[in-house]
């Protein structure tokens, strides 16, 4: 039977500590590679640019005279459905001095509604 002496127990304990700290550091580094994933996925999923662009074009339609604004409204609705599979519906009308705009946007994941008016 081997004779054990307990002279170097502190050295062995320190060795264990060092290797365990390496182990936990490795786990932390391992997690860091997936940090951007959720962020990037949610950024891609959220149609920020679509909504901004739709808002902008709907704002532009305010200046379009009567017969053409009906055509443009149908263009936006039909093309949104066809090319972006998103439901876009809006209406703008003037009552007295105020113009009212209602925007509805839904691409199946994100829904956005806006209702505003100006004088």
């Amino acid at each position, binding site marked *: 039977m081997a004779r054990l002496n307990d002279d170097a127990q502190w050295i062995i304990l320190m060795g264990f500590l060092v290797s365990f700290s390496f182990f936990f550091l490795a786990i932390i580094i391992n997690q860091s590679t997936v940090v951007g994933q959720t962020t990037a*996925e949610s950024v891609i999923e959220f149609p920020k640019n679509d909504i901004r*662009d739709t808002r902008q074009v709907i704002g532009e339609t305010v200046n379009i005279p009567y017969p053409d604004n009906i055509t443009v409204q149908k263009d936006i609705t039909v*093309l949104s459905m066809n090319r972006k599979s998103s439901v876009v519906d809006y209406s703008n009308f003037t009552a007295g001095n105020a113009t009212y705009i209602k925007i509805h946007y839904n691409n199946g994941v994100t829904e956005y509604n806006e209702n505003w008016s100006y004088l």
Partner: protein
Amino acid sequence: MVNTDGQLYTIEGFAAGLIMLMTAYLVVNATSVYTAGDTHISDMQLEALGSDALTMMGTNVSLLTTSPLESTLEYVIDNPSSVPNATFKAVFLNLTNHRTGKPIDYNKIDSTMDYIHFNASYTCRDLTNNNITSYPISYSRNLTGGEHTVRATKWVIVNKGSVTAPFCGSTTKQYRAVLVEVLLWRD
């Protein structure tokens, strides 16, 4: 003679060796893992870049002038044979590929410098039969099908009566909304 004096030292040596190997494996492996997140991040950046470039092109300097995107679109509608449109190509490539150092030679076919490619088209609704049709605007290289592309879109309102070719199924001057779509990919 065979004796059993050193067995515990051998076992200890094995245990230490295994711990070291496992630690080294985890440390080396941890930094070189490619997750799906990496492709998502570059997709997100490419999409944001394309959207920004289209927004810049679609912004007019003053209310009296048309934006570069709109004037290019009007030109393409009038001259379908001008595809791929050189103006759109130059402006868009310039906006998406600006970087420091040596300028990129876009026209050199066998250029070894990598840059972001695009394929742009516009879609409009035909007034007479309600059909949706896409027309090309410009491209930097033909799509082969193997590209990993992202899409950026921009609405443009065009006030146009086409002289030479019917615009969205009509020859009379009128306001129409068309959707400009750009596919971007890294070479």
